[in-house]
């Protein structure tokens, strides 16, 4: 029976009770990530403590040595279980293969074998070294393999701590609490053991490491219960990041500051036609024919891969990766397939040429023939051909709008844009009184906005058939948005036109009367904004186009040359 009643022994009993309780709780939470390795960790701890208690109660030196040997099973379970727990808990379970577990278990298995066979060699010796003041036998352990086992244990301890350290700065309180509790749980006995092995803690007959398990047991219980370790688990986070990186449609290539590829996803490897593993460590410049144009002009540049018939074009975007001091660590290059876009753009250019040149030429010829005759018919022919030219110009505006929206845009001052549009309108509609309400603060806006504003003003002026035709144009900047509104005193926009516009598409039976309002809608939407229509008092309409001002220029990739 146990004779000693020291605080250390009570703590050993406490560590067994708490460790066993935590092991049962962890067992019940299987198969949550980390639960099974934690069960083994706690079993190892508890067995270690139990063996020391049995050793203390053995009564004879041989019994103490025997239980010290048996304790080595628990001693060596702990580090292996800890590293497996850390990997599984943080979602890195792909490293937990049978082969890896077997490799991890080699040193522990050899240690146990050396411990059991200790009288026959000196690699790991366990022997009585005296008697403590309370009468218990003091056991001395050492040897070359003891140092190996201790070093291996500390190494696995540190390796397990590393992934958990990252959770300390997690945005989720539960993960911060869990990781803090886990670190307390592992660092307390490990620190105790290091101090014991360094001789800082004077031996009192027992290894104080299992005594510290009382603290770690409480910490693990806290992680499980207080911070819901198996209720809110960070394991998917790591896997989700990997999944997203591997499965996004864009090719993604991570290069370090020396132009070396350090990560590449499957799509990226497929695009470059290489094996992902072979790409790692290669120079990005050798695989990607990128040049400094990306950093110098900030303009759109495409990477074309393949032969003429099957070539694919990619829009290359470089995003800078920086450390917490803002220093550049590397870049993420994303390759977005723009082959279809480029084909579309070619078609638009052909259409543009047809609308710009061919229709105008044909209309001029018709007008020429019409001028050879006189009368109402000639007048009508002239007016209608003029109308055809106007429509073709609208179509051309639309094509340019689409091109501008997807390519790098020219920018212009908001105030200047409003002034320019008003000047053009005043010239085109001399019978209309235009008023301007310039913005309080001027900002830079995409030039494509001028298509929207021009069409709004033209619509307000052209369809105003009153005695005193007035159009008021104002602009403002607030909450990161630029707003331009056009108010007129005309008859107002027909509800039918607005309904067609809101529907977003036209049919053979339901369609608008022209392209002007469509250009307004498409223009604002392409710029990321919106357009609203409100009735004006006493008559007319107030149309407001709002676009966001945030613009991020991501083109600044400049590989650091070696």
């Amino acid at each position, binding site marked *: 029976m*146990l004779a000693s009643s020291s605080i250390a022994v009570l703590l050993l009993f406490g560590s*067994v*009770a708490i460790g066993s*309780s*935590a092991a049962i709780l962890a067992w019940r939470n299987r198969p949550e990530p980390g639960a099974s390795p934690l069960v083994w960790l706690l079993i190892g701890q*508890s067995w270690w403590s*139990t063996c020391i208690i*049995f050793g203390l*109660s053995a009564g004879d030196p041989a019994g103490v040595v025997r239980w010290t040997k048996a304790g080595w099973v628990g001693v060596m379970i702990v580090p292996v279980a800890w590293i497996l727990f850390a990997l599984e808990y943080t979602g890195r379970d792909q490293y937990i293969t049978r082969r890896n577990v077997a490799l991890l278990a080699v040193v522990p298995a050899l240690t146990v074998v050396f411990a059991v066979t200790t009288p026959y060699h000196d690699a790991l010796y366990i022997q009585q070294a005296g008697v403590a003041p309370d009468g218990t036998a003091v056991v001395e352990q050492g040897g070359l393999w003891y140092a190996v086992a201790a070093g291996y244990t500390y190494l696995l301890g540190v390796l397990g701590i590393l992934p958990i350290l990252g959770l300390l700065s997690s945005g989720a309180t539960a993960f911060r609490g869990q990781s803090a509790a886990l670190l307390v749980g592992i660092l307390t006995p490990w620190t105790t053991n290091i101090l014991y092995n360094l001789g800082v803690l004077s031996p009192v007959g027992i290894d104080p490491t299992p005594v510290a398990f009382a603290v770690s047991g409480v910490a693990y219980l806290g992680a499980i219960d207080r911070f819901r370790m198996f209720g809110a688990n960070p394991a998917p986070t790591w896997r989700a990041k990997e999944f997203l990186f591997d499965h996004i449609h864009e090719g993604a290539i991570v290069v370090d500051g020396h132009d070396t590829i350090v990560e590449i996803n499957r799509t990226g490897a497929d695009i470059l036609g290489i094996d992902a593993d072979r790409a790692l460590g290669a120079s990005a410049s050798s695989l990607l024919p990128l040049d400094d144009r990306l950093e110098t002009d900030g303009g759109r540049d495409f990477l074309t891969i393949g032969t003429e018939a099957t070539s694919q074009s990619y829009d290359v975007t470089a995003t800078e990766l920086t450390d917490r001091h803002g220093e550049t660590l590397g870049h993420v290059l994303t390759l977005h397939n723009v082959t279809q876009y480029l084909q579309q753009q070619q078609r638009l250019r052909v259409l543009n040429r047809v609308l710009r040149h061919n229709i105008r030429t044909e209309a001029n010829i018709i007008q020429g023939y019409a001028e050879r005759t006189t009368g109402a018919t000639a007048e009508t022919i002239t007016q209608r051909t003029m109308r055809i030219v106007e429509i073709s110009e609208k179509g051309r505006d639309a094509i340019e709008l689409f091109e501008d929206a997807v390519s790098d845009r020219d920018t212009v001052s908001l105030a200047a844009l409003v002034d320019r549009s008003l000047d053009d309108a005043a010239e085109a509609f001399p019978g209309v009184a235009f008023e301007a309400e310039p913005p309080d603060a001027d900002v830079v806006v995409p030039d494509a906005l001028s298509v929207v504003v021009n069409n709004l003003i033209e619509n307000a002026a052209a369809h105003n058939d009153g005695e005193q035709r007035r159009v008021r144009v104002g602009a403002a900047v607030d909450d990161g948005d630029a707003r331009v509104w056009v108010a007129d005193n005309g008859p107002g926009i027909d509800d039918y036109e607005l309904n067609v516009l809101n529907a977003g598409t036209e049919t053979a039976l339901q369609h608008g009367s022209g392209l002007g309002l469509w250009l307004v809608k498409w223009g604002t939407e392409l710029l990321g904004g919106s357009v609203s229509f409100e009735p004006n008092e006493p008559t007319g309409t107030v149309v407001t186009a709002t676009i966001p001002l945030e613009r991020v220029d991501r083109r600044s990739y400049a590989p650091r040359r070696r």
Partner: protein
Amino acid sequence: MASKTNEPPVTTDHHVRWHAGIPASVVDAGHRIKDVLTYSSAYLVFIAMVEVLTVHLVLSLPLNPASVVVGLVTFAVYAGDRIADAEDDELSSPERSAFVTRHRRLLSMLTAGTYGLAIALSITGGPLALGITLLPGAFWILYASEWLPTLGSYFKRLKRILVVNSAIVALAWAIAVVGLPMAFAEASVTPLAGVVFVYLFVDTFVNTEIPNVRDVAADEAVGVSTIPVVFGIQRTRHVLYGLDLSLIAFVGAALASGVVSTPVAAAILLGLGYALVLAWFVGRSAAPGRLAIAGEAKHLVVFALLLVFTTGL
């Protein structure tokens, strides 16, 4: 101890009458305590401790922490079983299932804590005591948890296998109740200890099958094969008669051979007579939950008779 003892339903109107003059908070606390004791099967703790004390008395062992350890393990295992089976129990014991679900977290912590404490206490009894203390938990893993089926399709929860389910429960508790006080006392195994072990093994087996009669529909629904499910209620009654009568013959033979003293044999035989009467009520009682508790309470009867016969109290 049986694994599936259930409580009688609570009649709310009755309580309203007798506690009319008591503050509501006290009544509420009383109800909560009663719920904890019945729904978590904590009353089995008391019966298990009495069983251990019975072994102490029969084998003339000095008092030791064995009864406390067995009590803690009983609570941990049975309440843990309630947690594991909360969903399955919705059909047969909806109130208990609701209680366990509502207090799952607390019960989970309590059961883990009590088993942890039991393990720590058992260490004071040496390695054998520790091993015996771990046995009911290990058997429970084999018996009730979903761990065994995860090893492969060949394995299934032992709880679902005919006879094996009750036998494993009986074996675990017979070893714990007889072995633990002996391990603490460092007593050697004697023929008398063997007789006590057989008696407790068969008796616990019978007590495990009694509540199975009530749970036929629920067990069938979740695929648990019990004697009532496979052989029907009448044949189950006959099986229980047969087991009790065999036990009477066994104890009689032990008495005749001088292994068991007359006072001990008398107490056990009277208890088995009580068990035979209970067996007659199996399938005939309108309150099967109370019948199951009455089966467990037989150990109190035997202990009281032993006290009277051996100490003259």
